[in-house]
């Protein structure tokens, strides 16, 4: 029994080690007072300082934030509407195909998607501007928002809340705005947060679709990497890591709210 437990312990430790040790190394070396990542020379914050003084990097950061915000916003609105259509309406023709098509961006190789979007935009004569990139990101994010919102809408539907609102005199629009939307909001926000991280860290699609002058954070990091992994990159990655954990925390706070449950 105890040998079995110890075996289990070792297994878990090595699993988590495999997953997180590289991150730990990265975090440690972001504080290393040396140009190269091999030897420890003492603690410093200078890489972080350099990071925030790098105008190009900061502008890439801003671009990525704006992009993620726009993509998350578009995906949230579209995802809500798509889910509402799927849940609200009685099974319509080609419903299965509709469901499957919404999930395609999740499974399709991003390279194919990137090439496809680029070809389409160029053929359509559309300029490769910020909105083009934001829309492409929204496309990748859509399956995440749909997944989050649809589950919530189904449980709302089952508890006949919209019927109850209409029974009490609310028009369909009032029932949607006063009952369904506020109750679906936690799921919409949760989906939007997920979209935000998906967009923020996206490299492949951005790489294909970003026109001249649009440099997102992952693209910037990639270009910096051409000269090897510098301590600045370590520091930058640590910043992103912290930001991601904060977002995950937010997401958990919004997604798990048992007292907001619509069903009793």
């Amino acid at each position, binding site marked *: 029994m105890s040998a079995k437990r110890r075996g289990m312990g070792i297994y878990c430790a090595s699993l988590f080690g495999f997953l997180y040790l590289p991150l730990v190394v990265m975090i440690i070396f972001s504080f290393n007072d040396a140009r190269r990542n091999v030897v420890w020379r003492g603690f410093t914050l200078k890489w972080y300082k350099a990071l925030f003084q790098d105008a190009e990097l900061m502008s890439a950061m801003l671009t990525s934030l704006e992009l993620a915000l726009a993509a998350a916003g578009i995906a949230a609105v579209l995802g809500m509407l798509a889910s509402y259509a799927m849940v609200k309406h009685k099974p319509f023709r080609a419903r299965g195909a509709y469901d499957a098509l919404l999930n395609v961006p999740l499974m399709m190789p991003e390279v194919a998607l990137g090439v496809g979007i680029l070809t389409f935009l160029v053929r359509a004569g559309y300029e490769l501007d910020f909105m083009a990139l934001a829309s492409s990101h929204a496309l990748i994010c859509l399956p995440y928002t749909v997944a989050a919102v649809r589950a919530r809408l189904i449980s709302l539907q089952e508890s006949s809340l919209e019927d109850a609102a209409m029974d009490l005199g609310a*028009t369909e629009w009032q029932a949607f705005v006063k009952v369904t939307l506020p109750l679906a909001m936690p799921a919409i926000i949760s989906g939007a947060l997920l979209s935000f991280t998906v967009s923020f860290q996206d490299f492949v699609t951005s790489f294909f679709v970003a026109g001249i002058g649009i440099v997102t954070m992952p693209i910037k990091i990639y270009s910096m990497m051409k000269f090897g992994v510098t301590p600045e990159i370590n520091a930058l990655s640590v910043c992103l890591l912290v930001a991601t954990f904060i977002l995950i925390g937010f997401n958990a706070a919004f997604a798990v709210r048992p007292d907001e449950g619509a069903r009793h």
Partner: protein
Amino acid sequence: MSEDALLEVGPLNKAFGTSPVLRDVSLTVRKGEFMTLLGPSGCGKTTTLRIIAGFETPDGGRVRLSGVDVTDVPAYDRDVHTVFQHYALFPHLSVADNIAFGMRMDKVPEAEIKKRVPEALAMVKLAGFETRRIQSLSGGQMQRIALARAIAGRPAVLLLDEPLGALDLKLRKEMQLELKNLQKRLGIAFIYVTHDQEEAMTMSDRIAVFNQGRIEQIGTPGEIYETPKTSFVADFIGGANIFSAKVLRGEPGRAHLLLEDEHELDVPLDPNESLPGIGARVKVAIRPERVKVFYKDELPFGLIRFDAILKDTVFLGDACQIYLQMFKKHPERLTIAWAGGDRYAVHDDMDVPVIAAVQPDDVYILEPDYV
């Protein structure tokens, strides 16, 4: 129909896909009446309610409320409110805002709402609950709030879709009487959907018994119980022994039957009812509690007497169920009799000869089944 008819429905037809769920359902509800739609699940009672509420459109038939055809009027413009099976309270609103929801939609002035919310809460005995969150309520309290929300807007008709289904037995019994009292005080017509025949008997002014998308019988609880028209009604309400019989001969007011090919008996008929043709096969119902069992050879005058064999007795606490074999040609067809909750009625002996007896007017000739 009649002058005090508030709601007239019918003849409703509705099919989901190819399967019909309502066939010629017609119903009239009077002002201040407690009407129950009773039947097993899938019988069409909830669909009828949803058509009255405006959530479903009938394929055929009309809904008239206070003399106005509302068939094509959307749910939010109908003067009916619904109490839903799972309450459907808005979890993001307080108790007061839940109750005020309908009035706000109807643009009732806030000052008036401020007055009517506590009134509605007092009606359901939850005064002072205004600021409570929905999640903090028990099942029984949610039920009352759902009721308060539905009556606060003073609808002409209140629809209730198995509102007590999720409550435990004791609470359900309490709520039954309370609902009935509330309905009398408010004077609002209630249309109440349930599959529980006891609930229907306790509360209703009239009951419409549904089966497979049809109304089999509409009547007061007494009428439904005392004179069930079909074998479904007889069996669903209170349970019944149903036998097959052949009409040997008849005269106005009485019929002479051959029961299960072996017992001849005279059955009085309702003078309004026409006699089934001579030689016709009919179904006959006898309530278990109207079958008397005698262990000794004593027979009060005027009863129809059967020689029977006692097959089994089951003591149920408040009653005793006795299984009898009354027919030699059909020994597998057992008759059930109910005796009072007397432990001495329970016999340990099996296969003893006894006498089963019924009053002639406790034998009902049923109409042929629809299906």
